[in-house]
């Protein structure tokens, strides 16, 4: 009877991702059948799928439309009454209204839900002469449950720590001892060698992007490696300790001791907070990232941003975590923060990975624009950008 009932079971709307996967034939037989049930379960789904199947460039056409739609969508719907009969009054009202509601109005609208690339608009430079800090509106991060519920990208698409390392440029610090050509050459040798050594230890070999003299990046801030991953060295800047929750399982709780009830076997959980230096905490988080524990690392980067909202390390690695758990809009917001950051250390990487994120999101025209920029800038990722452009 259950199979018979399937005939009339109403199905949920197909998502764009499901349609895309189906069209590419990129799924197991079982998944394919499940999706076909969904297609057949609703005429909206089946008509739409038929439309996409009949036109090979359909998805590209939709991505263009999606960009246009979100770009042109006015925030508020205006009725004909206001538009045509009282437009003058409306203009005056808006002028007065904007004066009064100002930031409150903007705060109520969740721009991220519709148009996600708003980070550039929210950046404000604090002109306080005593400080070079930049005050930026925080990005609305996912909460623990949303992170846990996220479905990661398939492993072959993820930016795992190995892939990050193998595709990393050589980043040297301006005014450091690396200024001499010989020393840069030996650093290039070292980094390429290290990539090969790590790769040789792996069962599944990764593609390596080799560093050469033309594409060395000069960082305007000191850097160091934690768990073989490059980070900006904030040791002298971030002196405030970070408060993190800590949990400890101890023995049987005092009130249950010497009792024969079942609770006597339960362990008590003591929760307290722990103060830890920025560097020590970052070391722990980078170690999680290195082991590809992206969801756990993401929560910890969130903690760092609570204390240091402009931390470029947290923004960069958090973007990669969001990429890997397939939350591309969030990833792009964080890549944008990195790209707008006064420390240039991760600029080229962030731009390249942002292009990948846009590609994953299906924002092909924006992806192509960025890839063209990368190719024209002739930096570390120029060749890869060219290759990707040829494949799109």
């Amino acid at each position, binding site marked *: 009877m259950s199979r018979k009932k399937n*005939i009339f079971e109403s199905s949920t709307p197909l998502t764009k991702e499901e349609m895309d996967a189906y069209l590419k034939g990129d799924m197991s037989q079982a998944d394919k059948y499940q999706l076909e049930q969904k297609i057949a379960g609703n*005429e909206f789904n089946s008509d*739409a799928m*038929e*439309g996409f199947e009949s036109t090979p460039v359909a998805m590209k*056409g939709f991505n263009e439309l999606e960009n246009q739609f979100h770009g042109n*969508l006015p925030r508020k*719907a205006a009725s004909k009454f206001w538009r045509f009969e009282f437009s003058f009054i409306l203009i005056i009202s808006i002028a007065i209204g904007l004066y009064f509601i100002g930031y409150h109005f903007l705060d109520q609208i969740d721009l991220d839900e519709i148009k996600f690339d708003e980070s550039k608009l929210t950046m404000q430079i604090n002109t306080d002469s005593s400080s070079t800090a930049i005050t930026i509106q925080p990005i609305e991060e996912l909460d623990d449950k949303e992170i846990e519920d996220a479905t990661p990208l398939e492993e072959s698409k993820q930016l795992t720590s190995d892939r990050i390392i193998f595709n990393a440029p050589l980043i040297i610090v301006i005014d450091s001892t690396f200024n001499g050509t010989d020393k840069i050459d030996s650093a290039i040798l070292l980094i390429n060698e290290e990539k090969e050594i790590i790769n040789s230890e792996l069962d599944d070999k990764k593609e390596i992007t080799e560093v050469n003299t033309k594409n060395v990046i000069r960082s305007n801030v000191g850097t160091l490696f934690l768990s073989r991953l490059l980070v900006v060295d904030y040791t002298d800047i971030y002196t405030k300790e970070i408060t993190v929750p800590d949990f400890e399982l101890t023995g049987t709780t005092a009130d249950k001791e010497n009792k024969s009830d079942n609770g006597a076997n339960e362990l008590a959980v003591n929760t307290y907070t722990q103060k830890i230096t920025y560097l020590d905490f970052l070391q722990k988080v980078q170690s999680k990232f290195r082991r590809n524990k992206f969801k756990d690392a993401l929560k910890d980067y969130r903690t760092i941003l609570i204390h240091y909202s402009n931390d470029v390390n947290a923004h960069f690695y958090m973007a990669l975590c969001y990429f890997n758990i397939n939350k591309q809009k969030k990833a792009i917001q964080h890549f944008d923060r990195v790209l707008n950051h006064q420390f240039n250390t991760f600029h080229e990487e962030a731009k390249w990975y942002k292009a990948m994120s846009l590609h994953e999101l299906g924002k092909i025209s924006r992806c192509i624009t960025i890839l063209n920029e990368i190719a024209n800038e002739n930096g570390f990722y120029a060749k890869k950008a060219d290759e990707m452009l040829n494949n799109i």
Partner: protein
Amino acid sequence: MRRTKKNIKQFPDTELLIQYKKSKNNKYIGILFERYGHLVYGVCLKYLKSVVESQDATSVIFEKVMVDLLRMDVKNFKSWLYRVSTNHCLMQLRKKKPEGIENISELEYKLKDNYNSEDIFIKESKLKNLEEAIKKLKNEQQQCIDLFYLKEKTYDEVANLTGYETKKVKSYIQNGKRNLKLILTENDS
């Protein structure tokens, strides 16, 4: 840093409609577009057979949706949107007769019969008559329904087993379902 706003992407359609009516804020339409935009576009592609025309049609449909939702009481957004989309395509095809003649008849049939898989509720008790109802279907519809739903074969597998083209298989399944519903609900009215 703590989240203060609910994630509106999780809202069910009904909640989005309520919030949109209340606030007139187009961000709710943006979410509905993310949920259904590709389906509307796909439907337009099926009937209009042109990427550019389908892009335009989808934009027009959502502009209409923005206005209509403010004045109409829509209970089932998905079904309503499907009807709005097919209706719009029908009007476009009528304008450019005779090229669209073939699709016009299909669309008119759909709209006339008010057909939508969710509009017709099949009572549990009726399902016991399903086997009898299946037997009343045309042979090719019977075969495809049996293999797809009861033997859980994919479209391609059904096509291989029966020798029908995949496109035909889909059509037999859809039409078979439609006929099954008619048979099972015949005595209700």
